């Protein structure tokens, strides 16, 4: 959630800057400022005047489907795993929490959890490994209140790589669970 806060602060800053300027900056200009000043933004945002508050909240709100919000944790749809491991790394717990919250709040939504493995090892064993990975994500989501029928687990093993090199980096990109809504 910290990321979201600092982001809204960033938007506050850019809006303040825009207000401060008498000219009408283009949207690209505004985006550029917000990108460059991310670090310093939170303090200024926190001290923001009452007058700018309403403008800020307008900026941070997402009116579309939360799944479409590129700044949301829900935008992270791939969870990566260590070699021959199906335990979810702790750095992904926040992402899984966000997806679980979304699914719990939208009981009609269904997600496909597609498990994958890198090319090392045998194909059918990797099918099992991919399924274990998808099931790890599923268990965490269930613990957060997501209904069983909102998740479909499919393992593709090593059959659908997302990276085709045989480097360690490529193999790391292939050890994954994709969340497909």
């Amino acid at each position, binding site marked *: 959630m910290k990321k979201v806060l600092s982001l809204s602060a960033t938007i506050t800053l850019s809006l303040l800057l825009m207000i401060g300027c008498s000219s009408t900056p283009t949207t690209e200009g505004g985006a550029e400022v917000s990108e460059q000043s991310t670090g310093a933004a939170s303090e200024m945002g926190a001290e923001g005047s009452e007058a700018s508050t309403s403008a800020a909240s307008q900026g941070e709100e997402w009116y579309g489907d939360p799944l479409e919000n590129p700044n949301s944790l829900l935008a992270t749809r791939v969870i990566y795993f260590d070699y021959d491991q199906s335990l979810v790394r702790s750095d992904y717990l926040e992402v899984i929490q966000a997806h679980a919250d979304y699914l719990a709040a939208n009981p009609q939504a269904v997600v496909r959890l597609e498990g994958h493995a890198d090319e*090392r*090892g*045998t194909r*059918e*064993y990797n*099918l099992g490994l991919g*399924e274990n990975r998808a099931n790890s994500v599923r268990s965490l989501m269930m613990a957060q209140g997501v209904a069983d029928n909102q998740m479909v687990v499919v*393992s593709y093993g090593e059959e659908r790589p997302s990276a*085709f090199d045989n480097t360690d980096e490529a193999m790391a990109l292939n050890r994954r669970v994709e969340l497909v809504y």
Partner: protein
Amino acid sequence: MKKIVLMLLVFLACHSAVKAELTIEITEGVEGALPIAVVPFGTPGRGQPAVDLAEVINADLQRSGRFKTIPRADMLSRPTSDREVEFKDWRALGVENLVVGQVESTGAGTYQVQFQLLDVYRGQQLTGYSIPTTASNLRNTAHRIADIIYESLLGIPGAFSTRVAYITSTRLADGKSRLGLNVADADGHNPETIVTSSEPLMSPAWSPDGMKIAYVSFEGGQSAVYVQGVYTGKRQKVTSFKGINGAPAWSPDGRKLALTLSKGGNPDIYIYDMRNRKLQQITNHYSIDTEPAWSPDGKSLVFTSDRGGRPQIYRVSAFGGKAQRVTFENSYNARASFSPDGKLLTFVTQDEGNYRIAVQDLKTGVMQVLSQGRLDESPSFAPNGSMIIYGAKAGRRGVLAAVSTDGRVRQRLALQEGDVREPDWSPFKK
């Protein structure tokens, strides 16, 4: 070991460009291979055959690594029957055995093929046959002759007139893949695609009568096991339970399929009876249990399980019960299958960071690593037990390779384009 690198670019000039042929490369041969000369067959009468039978026989024998074949340019004469043979000329070349024969046209597209296998030192015939055939079967007739020669000189049946099933994957311009399940002659000729899909295809397995292939297809977004008639194209969906439907393996009597299902929450081994469609659960463990294979007597199964932490091979009765661990040597051993005589297992082992093909003697427990690749997988015994075909990587590309069971002969079979993998060697033709 002496390294013979011999490229046999096998393609028929009349073949359409669509059919990508396999290239066979013999990378290592055996010292003390039997010197043999296969003389070009005589073609009396009208209607010249489109296939050079002696060339096909020569390539088969050469490819096995058990024979040293004599180039045609070295032949002083070209006899087509024993009556024309000057044995002393062949002795001078160091040839121990000689194959002579004729292909005679007997009508529209039919032929009579005669051949004799001769012992050069004794000056006598070892075997000889007269075989009727057709234009479209000439290559197969040549493979059958090579089988007969192999058996009469080495004492075990040849496996040249068999086929290989394999998976191909081609990446298309739009980033999608086109998968194919193919069958080809054991020398890579006559490839035919029997299934195509935009979704993954896996784990082809010949039925014991060589008429059907079981495989895994992800069409429809989920895995299912299918059985398809190789020569009819008709197919049947065998299982499509929730979760994994994988690793089909035929029982030796062809009535049952062992397979992996995860419908119980994790992958376990089941046996599906093709006649009454009943399912019997063989393993029940929270680990990954997969890749079952039957012993030739049908009494037991081996399978991969990581119940001990890492994947290893276990053996269990075909009626279920307690599983016994079989492999102990390396930290990763998977996808085992039995040799036709039931004495050896071949499987994938992790050998100093590489995945390689190994054999293990079931009696002594001694394991031997046979292949030399980085990512070798899917080993499958030839029906005569002489060779193991497997999937390997050449750079990023999948290729097929074969190694003799004693590790002394190596071959590489590469399709001209795309990725080739998961070979399964057919049984003998019935």
